[in-house]
């Protein structure tokens, strides 16, 4: 199929270092002594643990249940005993602890009952829920829950489904090996996504430095009988970034402010498609993944590793060299040194690189920015990194947003080319997290302010209602008294001059001056109260004045003051 490819601006060409780890086929990593399975392994919520210490679990058994729509289930990678549900260090640069289920394998590797699902007979909603229950998340590294991406936009027709097999990061070859060895399952998984999203075409993008994977995928597409296009894309980092691959294959540019489905396109990683197929057709939840073990090791290779396996045990399989001083999780462009080599492999772990000072020499000291603009030329999102750096450095975070800091995908191209060796991405992460922290604070302050204002409003309303009630009662009392007085006067007058009903006013003072004086005083007091009642009628809009007049009119008419018990529109 002939396809016109597009270009994305920027990008860099670091040495790929991929050949080392593609020589050997995928190997199964042995069962570790202990599995530490973090509950939070995807973007979104933290699944709730559904097992307790001491409980026996089977391979594939649910141990963490999704706690919302953007959240994904977690399962026991093998059969064994839960020894602890507690805080353990995470594979995250911070080295923070988070809730994990620690399982001691029993060595029997005993599966739960697995059922194949005939997904075509189910409504799409149930297929999505099944994928969520199976813990299927984006395995390209972002670990976004896959089911959350499988709904097309209601207004924009789905045009292209882009499948990402580009794998642009140096050193990483797990997608390459997956496509070489398990292409058919990948293609069938893509079929599920296609059926759910109903795109006009399916485009599988693979960097042209992986001819074996391209050939395997083409063969598989033909064997399964699909019409997916397998397309070789030029090798240039970060061609495997979702937005860059979408750009290259469709010409569409997805800004940070939009979802890709708003532009009629969606993107999944090949490994995600593979796990989706295993989950649907074999009832296997995501309990393992392919991990490239490479770098400063004697035998770089790809392993199928159970989630929760300590990284040092995985690295040991590839025989790290003596001068290894750490493990980089992910690639050398976007990965990070793990805080401890014992942290577990998680769904986001696509690669472990044995770090050594020789392999990744220490960076030269940071120099001042000379505004050479290399970073801007390298930025695939066409940002001005040196401007964002300038403002992030001076903590002028508003300005960083004016320069679109949230469009930065942190690919590291700018840091890669910077002659002043400025860790630009670090500055951007710092700025982003500061902005998020400030927004959280502001939100909390706004909520508190709203609460306080509503309390004030409520208190005032109650006071007003009380005053009104009192006034009404007083008025009724006065009216009653006046009526009684009038009746009494009339009776007295009737007694004296039968048949005539003289106006009471003319006789009141003569007949009962005391009573009349009291009634008059009450009427005066009522009038005064009414006059003194705060109406806040200054500086009101014409509309508000009209509303006030209407309410006033209703009250004057003696109707129950229903309007006053409703909160005013301005208080909402």
């Amino acid at each position, binding site marked *: 199929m002939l396809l016109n490819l597009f270009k*994305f*601006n920027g990008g*860099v060409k*670091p*040495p790929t270092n991929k050949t080392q780890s593609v020589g050997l086929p995928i190997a199964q990593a042995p069962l570790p002594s202990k599995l530490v399975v973090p509950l939070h392994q995807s973007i979104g919520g933290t699944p709730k643990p559904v097992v307790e210490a001491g409980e026996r679990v089977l391979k594939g058994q649910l141990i963490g249940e999704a706690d919302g729509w953007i959240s994904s289930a977690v399962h026991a990678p093998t059969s064994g005993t839960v020894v602890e549900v507690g805080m353990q260090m995470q594979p995250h*640069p911070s080295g923070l602890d988070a809730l994990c289920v620690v399982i001691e394998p029993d060595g029997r590797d005993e599966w739960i009952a697995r059922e194949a699902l005939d997904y075509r007979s189910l409504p799409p909603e149930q297929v999505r829920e099944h994928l969520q229950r199976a813990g299927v998340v984006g395995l390209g590294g972002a670990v976004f829950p896959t089911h959350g991406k499988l709904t097309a936009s209601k207004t924009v027709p789905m045009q292209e489904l882009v499948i990402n097999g580009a794998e642009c990061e*140096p050193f990483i070859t797990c997608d390459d090996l997956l496509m070489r060895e398990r292409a058919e399952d990948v293609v069938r998984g893509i079929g599920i996504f296609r059926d759910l999203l109903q795109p006009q075409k399916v485009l599988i993008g693979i960097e042209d430095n992986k001819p074996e994977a391209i050939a395997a995928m083409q063969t598989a597409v033909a064997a399964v009988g699909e019409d997916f296009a397998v397309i070789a894309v030029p090798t240039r980092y970060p061609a495997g970034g979702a*937005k860059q691959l979408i*750009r290259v294959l469709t010409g569409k*540019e*997805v*800004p*940070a402010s*939009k979802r890709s489905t708003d532009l009629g396109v969606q993107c999944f990683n090949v490994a995600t498609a593979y796990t989706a197929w295993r989950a649907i057709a074999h009832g296997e939840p995501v309990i393992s993944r392919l991990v490239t073990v490479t770098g400063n090791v004697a035998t770089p290779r790809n392993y199928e590793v159970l989630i929760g396996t300590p990284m040092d045990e995985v690295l040991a399989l590839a025989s790290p060299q003596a001068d290894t*001083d*750490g493990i*980089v999780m*992910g690639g*050398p*462009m*976007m*990965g*990070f*040194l793990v805080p401890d080599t014992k942290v577990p492999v998680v769904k986001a772990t696509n690669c472990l*690189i044995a*770090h050594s000072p020789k392999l*990744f020499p220490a*960076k*030269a*000291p940071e*120099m*001042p*920015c*000379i*505004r*050479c*603009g*290399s970073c*801007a*030329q390298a930025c*695939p*999102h*066409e*940002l*001005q990194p*040196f*401007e964002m750096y300038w403002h992030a450095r001076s903590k002028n975070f508003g300005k960083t947003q004016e*320069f*679109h800091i949230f*469009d930065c995908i942190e690919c*590291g191209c700018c*840091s*890669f*080319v*910077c*002659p*002043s060796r400025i*860790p630009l*991405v*670090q500055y951007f992460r710092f700025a982003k997290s500061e902005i998020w922290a400030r927004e959280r604070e502001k939100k909390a302050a706004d909520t508190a302010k709203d609460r306080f204002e509503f309390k004030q409003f409520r208190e005032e309303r109650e006071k007003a209602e009380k005053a009104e009630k009192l006034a009404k009662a007083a008025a009724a009392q006065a009216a009653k008294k006046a009526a009684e007085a009038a009746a009494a006067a009339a009776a007295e007058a009737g007694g004296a001059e039968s048949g005539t009903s003289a106006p009471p006013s003319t006789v009141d003072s003569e007949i009962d001056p005391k009573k009349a004086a009291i009634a008059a005083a009450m009427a005066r007091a009522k009038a005064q109260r009414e006059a003194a009642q705060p109406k806040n009628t200054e500086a009101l809009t014409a509309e508000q004045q009209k509303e006030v007049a209407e309410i006033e009119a209703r009250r004057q008419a003696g109707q129950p003051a229903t309007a006053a018990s409703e909160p005013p529109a301005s208080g909402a």
Partner: protein
Amino acid sequence: MFAPAPYLLKDASVSKVMTQVCLALLPGIALYAWLLGPAILIQLLIASVTALAAEALMLKLMDKPLGLFLGDGSALVTAWLIALTFPPLAPWWLLVVGTAFAVIIAKHLYGGLGQNPFNPAMVAFAVCIVSFPALMSQWPALGLHLSFGEQLQVVFGLAPRIDALSGATPLDTLKTGLKLGENVDVAQLLANQEIYGQFAGRGWELITGAYLLGGLWLCWRGIITWHVPTAFIVGMGSLAAALWLYNPAQFASPLFHLFSGGAMLGAFFIATDPVSGCTTPRGKLIFGAGAGLLAYLIRVFGGYPDGIAFAVLLMNLCAPVIDLLTQPAIFGMKDKS
């Protein structure tokens, strides 16, 4: 151990950038020394030593790492540009004053490397031409052949500054000729005086041609982008062409202007300074074109022999605003205005 990604880095550094700028100047310098005498080499040396000494002093005063910054090469680039824009037989102290002013005032008092709003070399030129206009306008007269020793003596004040030293550049000579002469025109002046060479001044056209080659090499190496030099040449060339077509008797050809004085040096080595210039693609075009136009206006209608320094400084003033107004649309946001 904490080291953030990326762990792979391109082999690049500030000193590599500066070294390549210096390398690109070498062909021009070689021709300069050959055609106008080796005194320029002495001037380069004086400027370099002064720049490094001033740099070291300021780094020490500012408590910055000496080894790291002294080796970055930025002071050398400033020094070389000063030496190449000053008259080759200027007294040694003029170079020292200019270079020291550039490094201490124009660079370090603004915060050092990367912080200076004005091109330090052009600040030096402006300061010296305003303070010492006579010395800054004395170029070796045509046909003056002094030995290396004699040139040294002149530079270091051991020999009297004879009249033969107070020549002018072809550009200046032409301007003065046009101003003084009655009923003279450009063609006549160019035909009569040997100084003008083939099209832009004997020797000068070769030296500026070498700067052009060096500049193209910098473009090819990715040290500078094409925007500023192209816009500079188009800016200066188009105005020169318009006036030349309007009145060829009074205005020299664009070729003359582009290959005389500091035009090529300005287009490829001075206006391209990233620190004090524009950074956005459109901004660079505006910056280059503005510098070219202003340089022409100043050298033709102004009172100074050449206009590059003032043109670049004026554009330096505008650079932040130009950058602000020419921010490029980012990925995914190009449809909107």
